[in-house]
């Protein structure tokens, strides 16, 4: 057991080879303590999703090491994957499955026995106010309902580390506030959460530590207070840093 929930050491991810090679992540190192609510910011194509893909197993790191609670995601991938839940930016689901099936199948993949799985799925369906939609196919859900179903799916095996890639995209204001409240409660209950979002007020409201990725590298990292020094908002600091990066 480690006090650090996620440790990334010099992570490199190159897509393609030869002249077509593209370095999506270029030597990222991060250390995220247990219980953090960590905001990962950056412009589109900066390497946020690729980093998340390497952590969760969707992509294979080219080099470097990733440890989740001290467990290596490549060498001990089975143990590592039980520790993480992912709500991805893009809907990576069988769109013909119902809301209930999505969560049930995911619970099954994690090896959760039927009775426990049913109980957990019922809890999540209730928590995300999806009762009316539990038998509705994913393709028929609205954008906000899809996001809630994805969150439920990510939480079905009660992971210690929750990774949320744009979890409130397409969610209306009221539901977004409700989700924020839930995420805060989750974090307060001890879960470590990594959040990427283009809504910087969301990052400011929820996160206590923030990093900015640009061109596959960490260009700034600190506490929320450090990002909000001199009365600035997180958004103002973010824009300042990314504009400076552009001109360099």
């Amino acid at each position, binding site marked *: 057991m480690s006090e650090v929930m996620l440790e990334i050491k010099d992570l490199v991810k190159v897509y393609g080879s030869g002249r077509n090679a593209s370095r999506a992540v270029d030597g990222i190192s991060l250390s995220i303590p247990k219980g953090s609510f960590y905001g990962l910011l950056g412009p589109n194509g900066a390497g946020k999703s690729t980093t998340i893909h390497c952590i969760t197993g969707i992509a294979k790191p080219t080099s470097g090491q990733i440890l989740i609670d001290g467990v290596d995601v490549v060498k001990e991938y089975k143990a590592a994957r039980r520790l993480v839940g992912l709500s991805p930016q893009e809907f990576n689901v069988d769109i013909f499955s119902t809301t209930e099936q999505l969560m049930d199948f995911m619970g099954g993949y994690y*090896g959760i026995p039927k009775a426990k799985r049913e109980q957990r799925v019922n809890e999540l369906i209730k928590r995300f106010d999806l009762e009316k939609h539990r038998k509705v196919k994913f393709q028929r859900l609205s954008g906000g309902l899809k996001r809630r179903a994805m969150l439920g799916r990510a939480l079905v095996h009660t992971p210690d580390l929750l990774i949320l890639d744009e979890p409130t995209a397409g969610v209306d204001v009221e539901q977004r506030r409700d989700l924020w409240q839930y995420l805060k409660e989750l974090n307060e209950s001890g879960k470590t959460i990594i959040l990427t979002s283009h809504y910087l007020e969301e990052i400011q409201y929820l996160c206590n530590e923030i990093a900015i990725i640009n061109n596959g590298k960490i260009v700034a990292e600190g506490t929320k207070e450090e990002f909000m020094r001199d009365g600035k908002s997180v958004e103002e600091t973010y824009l300042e840093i990314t504009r400076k990066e552009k001109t360099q």
Partner: protein
Amino acid sequence: MNWIGLSTIFRREVKRTMRVPTQTLIAPTISSALFIFIFGTVIGSRISEFAGVPYISFVFPGVLLMTVINAAYASASSALYFMRFSRSIEEMLITPFSYFEMLLGLVGSAVVRTVLVAGLTLLVGVLFGAVRLVDPLGFFFYITAISAIFAMLGIIVALWAESFEQLQVLNTFIITPLTYLGGIFYSVTFLPPLAATITHLNPFFYFANAVRYSMIGYSEANLWLGFVVISGLTLGLAILVISLFRRGWKIRG
């Protein structure tokens, strides 16, 4: 072994099969019934016994084999390609499945669907009086192994394909010609010597021969050689698919 995970893959695939029963179960059964009627009843009525059995019983193992090959290939290739297309393959990539378990889940669920289709075809065969079974254990082994071979070929093509059209390439240019030329509807003794020799180089001939032997007890090839070909292909393809999964070819960024 993640048994609950594996049973979940099977459950999901059975649901997927039942979403389109016309395509997955009814169409291949009708197709088999037509083959049995035409080759067995219409043409077979003009042919006297062959290999000690009515022609319909001689030809039925070939019809069954063709059904098995098509069902296994279509099931595995369409399932995995759809998972790649919808990115739902990521559900398997982020969950605690080993590469062997991924193979077992995808191939096993295709074999289950194939056995369902084979069961319906057998039922049609029984109605036509075409079914004999001299070696049930061998029959079950060969049907399962051949299903697994074509499910794994389906997986390889589903990983390689970049469009739905490409999914059919192997089927159109390799599987269908080799199936028809593998002696599924005729005896290799009907062929001129050169064609008979060439047929012995076609692995599909050993598939047909093995299934036919287990059903009617008649063989035109060395059964041990057939066993080695079928077992070797099963093992070789399993190793290849696991290594492709391990490399993350076309599925892990």
